[in-house]
């Protein structure tokens, strides 16, 4: 009997369990998935929670529901991985593995910036990348009387790189709807050289910030949050005052990666860009936000990776060469407010461009263009996530590798 162990029962780990159980004989392979938390969150919903668009119940379900029969689901803390010994140490037992899949994700690390997780954390300094942060912010916004809201991005890479912009757009809509937009000054602060950094996106979408009256501060490398004077300060000495700061802190891989000495500076695991095999250990594979591959950290990326990784695990077991096929494919809806959204479809090499998706020439979804239909797509995606994506069911017409058909290149 052989052992395949999956670390993490988030989006990527759960999908791998669902893909692999039917493909590996139960008489040959035990599959174990380990995650200390009981709740599976629909993380894209954290964007909507603060604005009372989604309720708590819509973004969480028991993780157990999505782990297939025949897979051991162990709810314990992972202390350390010993890749040299093919062993994982849990809080009170150790597990040997023949094959390991690391799907431990990424998380916010506000303690990386001086003062960020200070006395005003979740009082007038908020994140929305955690369930707790998104809820605390919702409660704050419900009776906020207005002032200067600063939406701030600490540094790249982050999970769902478009979420901070979406947040700013939705905030504009939210305050309009509440009849208080004139009482709110909105500023978007980024360490990058613009709100949009790709040529095609800049020219297609540059109008959005102006249209929504959102101020922009670029090249802002935050050094500290000054809780006494409510301002953020950058290394060049620049200051941006705020009444309400919504920040995306540094994103890092899980601490267990650091404890195991398997990560880079940010605790992301060095991973082959195209096979998803660990660069150091041949029986270790990495998927989703936990990798250091230069793809977006997003559920759609994990979904496309899962298809390639499933094939590669079967090939590895048979002793055959792996497919070097993963192309960094990502497919993301971007809320632009007022019930409209964009869709982008891109990979390592191809930046987002205009076009139609998924049927070339027909759509019905439009790439890199605002439409009401795209917004419906984003809302429908919650159902697709719970009922298809996590279960490893292929999305019709959407292939693992990016297609150039229907795109204006």
């Amino acid at each position, binding site marked *: 009997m052989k052992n395949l162990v999956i670390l993490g029962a988030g989006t990527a780990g759960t999908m791998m369990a669902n893909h692999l159980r039917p493909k590996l004989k139960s008489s040959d392979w035990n599959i174990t998935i380990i995650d200390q938390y009981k709740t599976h969150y629909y993380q894209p919903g954290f964007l909507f929670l603060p604005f009372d668009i989604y309720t708590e119940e819509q973004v969480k379900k028991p993780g157990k529901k999505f782990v297939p029969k025949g897979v051991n689901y162990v709810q314990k803390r992972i202390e350390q991985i010993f890749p040299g010994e093919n062993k994982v140490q849990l809080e009170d037992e150790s597990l040997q593995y023949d094959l390991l899949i690391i799907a431990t994700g990424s998380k916010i690390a506000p303690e990386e910036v001086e003062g960020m997780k200070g006395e005003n954390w979740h009082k007038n300094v908020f994140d929305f990348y955690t369930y707790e942060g998104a809820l605390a912010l919702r409660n704050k916004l419900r009776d906020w009387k207005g002032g200067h809201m600063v939406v701030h991005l600490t*540094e*790249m890479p982050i999970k769902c790189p*478009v979420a901070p912009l979406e947040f700013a757009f939705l905030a504009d809509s939210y305050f309009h709807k509440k009849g208080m937009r004139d009482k709110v000054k909105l500023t978007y602060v980024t*360490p990058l050289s613009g709100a949009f950094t790709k040529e095609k996106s800049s020219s297609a979408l540059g109008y959005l910030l102006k249209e929504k009256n959102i101020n922009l501060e670029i090249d802002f490398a935050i050094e500290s949050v000054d809780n006494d004077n409510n301002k953020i300060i950058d290394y060049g000495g620049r200051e941006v005052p705020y009444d309400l700061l919504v920040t995306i802190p540094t994103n890092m891989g899980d601490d267990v990666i650091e404890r195991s000495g398997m990560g880079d500076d940010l605790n992301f695991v060095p991973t082959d860009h195209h096979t998803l095999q660990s660069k150091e250990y041949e029986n270790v594979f990495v998927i989703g936000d936990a990798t*250091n591959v230069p793809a977006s950290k997003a559920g759609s990326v994990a979904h496309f990776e899962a298809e390639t990784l499933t094939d590669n695990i079967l090939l590895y077991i048979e002793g055959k060469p792996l497919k070097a096929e993963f192309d960094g494919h990502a497919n993301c809806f971007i809320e632009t407010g007022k019930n409209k959204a964009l869709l982008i479809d891109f990979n390592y090499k191809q930046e987002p461009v205009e076009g139609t998706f998924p049927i070339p020439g027909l759509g019905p979804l439009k790439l890199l263009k605002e439409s009401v239909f795209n917004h419906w797509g984003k809302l429908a995606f919650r159902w697709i996530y719970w009922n298809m994506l996590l279960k490893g069911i292929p999305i019709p017409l959407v292939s693992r590798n990016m297609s150039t058909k229907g795109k204006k290149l």
Partner: protein
Amino acid sequence: METLIAGSNVKVNEEGYLLDFSQWNRGVGEEIATKEGITMTPRHWEVIEWIQEQVKADKALSIRGIKKSGVLDIKEFYALFPGGPLKISTKIAGVPKPKSCI
């Protein structure tokens, strides 16, 4: 598009970043620096080399990475490349500036 920098034809994007690192040499870096108003010193070159190594090793460039590099601290980084040190130094180094997905 192609443009002439320091006597060689190099491919650059609309903002003047090199598209093919193999076309980079110190002369090219120097001329880009001059256009940005920077006079290169041995210290500048040390930083440029470090940035090129990071990119070669697939590491994401960030201000925080500079802090942890041991090569220089962030105040010095700002002093060497005033304004937007990452976007200016990457341009001189012939590598892409840090980007998001859109």
